[in-house]
């Protein structure tokens, strides 16, 4: 990448995380694909089928990162989504997700080891999932139905016009 390319590189990354053949677990991937279809020039859009340290490799060098992923909470309704800041996940730093360390731990690792390359802001778009155990390319109806409004919210909140 040339210096010129580097200067013009988008400063925001939107990354959809999930498994696209595991029902609602893939909602982050499906949102990312919809965003990519919009041809947005001011953000980069990536898909990530894993999380943890793989995410760390991906976010380095960006100013702002928006992570779109499935979530399951006790009282959540499928398709409902929350826009959260990194601090919301501090208590899960020691939780178990793919390959031993989860997203929050990976980000904390990055801030310890390569703080100068880490994004200043990390947001999560957490979408309530209904089914994350059945192998299927299709999401459940309430989650699939929520995708347009999720995309609209992400564009309005995180995609600048310049």
């Amino acid at each position, binding site marked *: 990448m040339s210096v010129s390319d580097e200067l013009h590189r988008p400063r925001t990354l939107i990354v959809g*995380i*999930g*498994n*696209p*053949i*595991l029902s609602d*677990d893939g909602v982050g991937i499906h949102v990312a694909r919809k965003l990519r279809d919009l041809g947005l020039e001011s953000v980069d859009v990536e898909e*990530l*089928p*894993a*999380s943890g*340290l*793989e995410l*760390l*490799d991906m976010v380095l060098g960006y100013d702002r990162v928006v*992570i779109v*992923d*499935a*979530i*399951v*909470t006790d009282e959540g309704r499928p398709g409902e989504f929350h826009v959260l800041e990194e601090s919301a*996940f501090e*208590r*899960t*730093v*020691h*939780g*178990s*997700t*793919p*390959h*031993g*360390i*989860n*997203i929050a*731990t990976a980000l*904390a*690792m990055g801030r*310890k*080891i*390569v703080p100068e390359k880490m994004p200043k802001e990390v947001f*999560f778009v*957490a979408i309530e*999932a209904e089914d*994350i*155990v*059945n*192998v*299927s390319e299709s999401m459940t109806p309430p989650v699939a139905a929520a995708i347009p409004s999720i995309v609209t919210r992400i564009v309005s909140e995180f995609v600048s016009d310049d």
Partner: protein
Amino acid sequence: MSGPIINDTTTKTTEKKLTIDPITRLEGHGKIEIFLNDEGNVANAYWQVPELRGFERFCIGRHVQELPIITNRLCGVCPAAHHIASTKTLDAVFDATPTETATKLRDLFYMGQYVHSHIAHFYALAAPDFVLGPSAPSNKRNILGVVDAVGVEIGGEVIKHRSYGQKVQEIVGGRATHPCFGLPGGVSKQISEEERAQMEEMARSCIEFGKFTIKLFHDVVLANQDYLGLILNQDAYYLETYYMGMVDKDNKSNFYDGDVRVVDQAGKEVVKFKPSEYLDIIAEHVEPWSYMKMPYLKSVGWNGFTTGPSSGIYRVGPLGRINVCEGYTTPLAQAEYEVLAKTVKDLGVTGPVHHTLAFHWARVIELQHAAERMLELATDDVITSDDTRGEFKEPTEGVGICEAPRGTLIHHYASDKDGLCTKINMIVATTNNNAAINTSVVQAAKALIQNGEVSQGLLNKVEMAFRCYDPCNSCGTHALNGSPALEINVRRADGSKLKTVRNF
């Protein structure tokens, strides 16, 4: 830094059932349930994993050439292993022989996977127990605590070399996490000289990091008498089982290709079999309380969760591989293998290493071997040839096996004449280890929890008994919030819950 915390204070519990859910630092959401008897000793313990439903149905009717892309989505942890096993299965289905270039590129790609996976396991999952201590507070006993203890510079080296493993997979395999280069009889992507040179440089660095990791294992683990005591604790971490793993024609360990060798409790070869023969060797037992089957050696039979020659339970993964092989083809891994062999011999062990926690030592030896093998392949001119695709025939049925970092991985597909999948069967590494993991959990729980005396450190030591297998349960499920790291449900003898304790 202060020294590692080996033991903590226990408290007396009057409960009858302890549940560890989900297991900390483990792919997926497993659960351990420990049942106590009236005296507060362990009556039994169970390791349970969640179910992933409908995968077979999802694959039937699809073109078999899609399966290397689909099966690798079973898991966010070992997609490369599924991709390689699946591609080798396509070789068998299409009766195809990959070219030398294709074989070496697949092997090189796979060494990238091993470097990445073994670094991640050792530093993120195993090191917290050894650097900080098994009884360190759970909010410190993680990779962030390890970085605090060993320093940011070493943490940076961990990140860098794990990412080199990923980069090699990306260069050769098209994508790092979900590769897409495997075809029957070959690979879809040629390598440029610039890419080869880049991989050579990364491999050289990984070899140095492998040396560092072995030294760290000696300095931190083996030099610490408390840890050595844990590793050698035959009450908690010792199973005399059969072992299974892949070897080359000289019985040297091989991760990518070869025959599968099985040895008995004394190290004597029981059988060496080709992939197509696996159904003659392995049978699967079903327990009503477990979604995951329990494979065992057909010739020996299922004898419950017992060990010894009359129980068909076998172990795979680093410990299985190191026990079935007669060394390594690369010098540094071979040298450390000899150190291990001499060490256990000096302790009076004559056959295989049955000490469960020796998984970790075997894993760092394998990290070294993978890095050395990566360099061998990255400096082989044939990998930049354009001869990447061999001949193939009409599709029929076939089996492919490779050694996933976690152990022997078997794929088996049948196809109709148009290439559409009519049958699929897989035995994944953690399933191969399932019965042994359960047996290890029961053993550790019985040895460590007595008279109702329980502590977080003790429960973590129970977890260590299976964490060293590096079990991978989720097969892809990974919702963002995960779940609490460690939850202990205390229940009465009738199963009703008395209270819940979390470790953070």
